[in-house]
């Protein structure tokens, strides 16, 4: 199926209302791993939004990528509690372990403030990380 | 529409055709009135003097009325 046809299927599964924009973007991101300029245009046209509006929304959320990035992602919390619990001291080791192969994405709070430092891979949460655990988590991807 | 005479006949018929829905008597009077109101004298003189074979019944009636009381 062409990209257009896949997006059309996604659009067909949602109401043609502006409020459907975020769910549609999530589906497109999940399907392709990104929401590129062409997808923005198709979605804008379908919902009768301007392409600037859709681009504004896509670019606002870090979860939406504008281009494919095949690397696995490890989200590491950088918010206040995790900072207080020492995430900064672990980051260099995490970066070394990731190299170019794994993408480390900063996030701000995963809702587990009392048990940080925390990270997330896909839908799996990881708490009470020390350097070795974080490095092995990165390497496991 | 080559010459001016052809064009005048065409115009008169077109006016008449648009008034025709109001019935022949009203249409003849309205067409005559329209030509009197909006046509330059040389155009009226030309259509009065020219060949009327191409005129519709209503247009011909209007021209005849103008002839009677210009």
């Amino acid at each position, binding site marked *: 199926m062409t990209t257009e046809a896949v997006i059309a299927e996604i659009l067909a599964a949602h109401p043609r209302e502006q409020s459907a924009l975020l769910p549609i973007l999530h589906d497109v991101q999940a399907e392709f791993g990104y929401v590129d300029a062409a997808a923005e245009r198709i979605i804008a046209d379908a919902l009768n939004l301007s392409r600037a509006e859709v*681009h504004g929304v896509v670019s606002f959320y870090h979860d939406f990528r504008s281009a494919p990035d095949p690397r696995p992602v490890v989200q590491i919390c950088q918010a206040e509690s995790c900072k207080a619990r020492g995430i900064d001291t672990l980051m260099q080791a995490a970066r070394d372990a990731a190299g170019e192969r794994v993408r480390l994405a900063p996030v701000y709070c995963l809702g587990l403030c009392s048990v940080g430092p925390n990270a997330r891979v896909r839908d799996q949460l990881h708490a009470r990380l020390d350097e070795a655990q974080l490095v092995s988590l990165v390497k496991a991807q | 529409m080559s010459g001016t005479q052809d064009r005048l006949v065409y115009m008169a018929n077109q006016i008449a055709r648009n008034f025709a829905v109001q019935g022949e008597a009203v249409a003849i009077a309205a067409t005559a009135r329209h030509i009197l109101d909006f046509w330059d004298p040389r155009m009226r003189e030309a259509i009065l003097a020219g060949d009327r074979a191409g005129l519709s019944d209503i247009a011909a009636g209007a021209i005849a009325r103008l002839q009677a009381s210009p």
Partner: protein
Amino acid sequence: MGYEPQADFGTPEVRADTQVTLTIDGRSVTVPAGTSVMRAATTSGGAIPSLCATDSLAAFGSCRMCLVEVEGMRGTPASCTTPVAQDMIVRTQTPRLEKLRRGVMELYISDHPLDCLTCSANNDCELQDTAAEVGLRDVRYGYAGAHHLGQQPDLSNPYFLFAPDKCIVCSRCVRACDEVQGTLALSVEGRGFASKISAGQRADDFLSSDCVSCGACVQACPTSALMEKSVKEHGKPERAVITTCAYCGVGCTFRAEMRGEQLVRMVPWKDGKANRGHSCVKGRFAWGYAHHQDRITTPMIRESVDQPWREVSWDEALAFTAGRISAIKAQHGARALGGITSSRCTNEETFLVQKLVRAGFGSNNVDTCARVCHSPTGYGLKTTFGTSAGTQDFDSVMDADVILVIGANPTDAHPVFASRMKRRLRQGAQLIVIDPRRIDLVRSPHVQAAHHLPLQPGTNVAVLTAMAHVIVTEGLADEDFVRDRCDWDEYQDWARFVSDPQHSPEFLEAVTKVPAAELRAAARLYATGGNGAIYYGLGVTEHSQGSSTVMAIANLAMATGNIGRPGVGVNPLRGQNNVQGACDMGSFPHELSGYRHISDGATRTMFEQDWGVALDPEPGLRIPNMLDAAVDGTFKAIYIQGEDILQSDPNTHHVAAGLAAMDCVIVHDLFLNETANYAHVFLPGSTFLEKNGTFTNAERRIQPVRKVMEPANGLEDWQVTQALANALGLGWAYTHPAQILDEIARLTPTFAGVSWDRLEREASLQWPVNDQFPDGAPVMYVDGFVRGKGHFVVTDYVPTDEKTGPRYPLLLTTGRILSQYNVGAQTRRTANTAWHPEDVLEIHPLDAENRGLKEGDWARLASRTGETSLRVSVTDRVAPGVVYTTFHHPETQANVVTTDYSDWATNCPEYKVTAVQVTPSNGPSDWQEDYAGLTARSRRIAAEPAE
């Protein structure tokens, strides 16, 4: 007037029935309920620092500069988003507020270049002003950390630049594009520190985005992030003059901001009642033609059109012209002479041209370009309502519940009004579009027509009759209104006619190609959806039944009671700035000013006494009849002011033959236009920036045009006409257009209360202005029709004689595009060509495929009348069997293919329907090449004045 930016009250005006009184800094202030504290403070003489607020936009509350203290409220609320309350006590300046504001300001300035001295907004910058107001003395943060300085500007738009390093991301530009213009071309890209104003998508610049260059974002910007390139070039203006735009019939008023005689920029005037502070790419930016090198500023004459032009003095040119006119009059009589007034010139100028023809030449052979655009409006609305004008003001659209647009493309041709209309549509009004083409209004971001009826070109009357059928047979007519306001017998005749099953949507579907169910739904919506307002344009008038269509529209409005209050009505969208005015001024051959027939003895006597001459009581020739008479040898001389009939009128070959047959063609224009190829005399004209006078827009609003610089040719256009009159011995002695306006008021009952002094005081007046309507009439027929009872006219659908067939199987219809204006004489001489460098032919994919045509290919466009060549654009905006183009470029000469067919009542040409064939082509047609040669020969100007 000196140069002061217009006062900004921070948030929009609120209309409310109840008033609220509060105390601000010890002052008692009373404002309408719902007003913001900021507006209450600023309108009562106070000032609150702010950056993200401006009174054209809804309050946003992001900049945190406008904080205030309110007794009994916790914290420091933003005054822009806090509505007033009864007995509220507000303080706008306290030590705590000072400290807060200074802290916020310090953060703004920590990421803003400190190059104020060399900045194009220096001394005209809200950021600078606000820094001063809050007493910022120190910035502690330095530039060592992350910042946005050094980012490269976007220079893609020809008229303004975007400098992201100067941007404070207040989002005023984004909101202006959304709320004021309604294009939504801008957004904030990214988030947090990375937030950046972005046009279109990531890879776009302003030019490649959806931006229509209306200038609203530039006007809204508080810094120099969005700035006119002309200000960068010329510096800050030192004075501002309020004047009226000379492009379309919306009639926007602008501040012409000047340095000396240099126009620095045109900024829409917020107090202008037609545009309410908005503008489009033409009026705002496309004024460079005024100084274009093609402009002719010296009079020129020649014995015959095969000779080169000879530059001469005004005296010699006028003597030559007067000599020729007098000789022709002596030999052929007064009726061999005539003139054409211009809808681009002022009321005073058109009045003088028709006076010159009637009183000086001695004939009534005066016509105007409205002949080829809105003459059916004059006929149709006069016949039904009694007055040749639209019924509403533009503000009225904000009270409409159902908007019916037929044969008009407002977003391209009347963009500033279209933005108002779109604002109302976003508020929830419903839209019906009747147009062969899927115009932008049918579907564009946040606007979606409830019904689009894509009718076959030439079937307007059938569609409107079918709508009337639905309204009458389904019992949706407002019979109480009709009995009260209209002739009941005529209504019954009309109702009987439209009720005939042969006028049902189902029966007429074969003709109109409009699905009957859709048409029925549209008719029901118009009749029952609340206030129904009809807006129409040349897609109504430029047909063989243009006048019938106007009357059919009027019938619909009367039958549904949609007349006589805000939010309803019948509204012609006028093409040119002064079409309404030119028609009002007696530019038609059968009418004196105020639409009074030349045969009316009392009216004629009034003019004869005032002018001291006898007038011909017979109607004169219309433009097409003038050309016929010229070919026949009875019409010999024409004075054409500000009009290019060779390019704008139908059947170019016939126009050329008529002009070639005349002995004296006088062209009075800014440029050597296409008509001037056949001229013997060229009188240089002045632009709207170089003259005083008045224009009357589509809502009957008379507005002053003011001279901001001396005419490059030395004379305002009315002075040229007066000089010609005096060369003919008429002895006119006007010294200012105000005197001409007095004469108009003296002789025209609907203008009786209009004067230059009053316009100076009141800025605009909507006629009629007289004893009955001393302050004018924004909405007409509030208390009944002028003619007594509204007049229903039975309009029978008569198909045009221009028919498709095997040789010419497609229907060509024509229209406009946003960036260009009319024949393009002005806009082609500006940077607007960045958006529309040539005319293209829109063709449906099926028709293109059948002909082996691809996007961008050259195609030959041929009709029974002629042929031309242009590039194609393949699009399903047009239906199969229909093709579409514009006529802005003389190289294309779209009117080579249009025919002689015209409206039955007014001879307005049938531009909108021509049977054509489209075939692949290698390039320009023979006619285009011949014509290019003729133009080159004809435009020669002798290097040295002849001995």
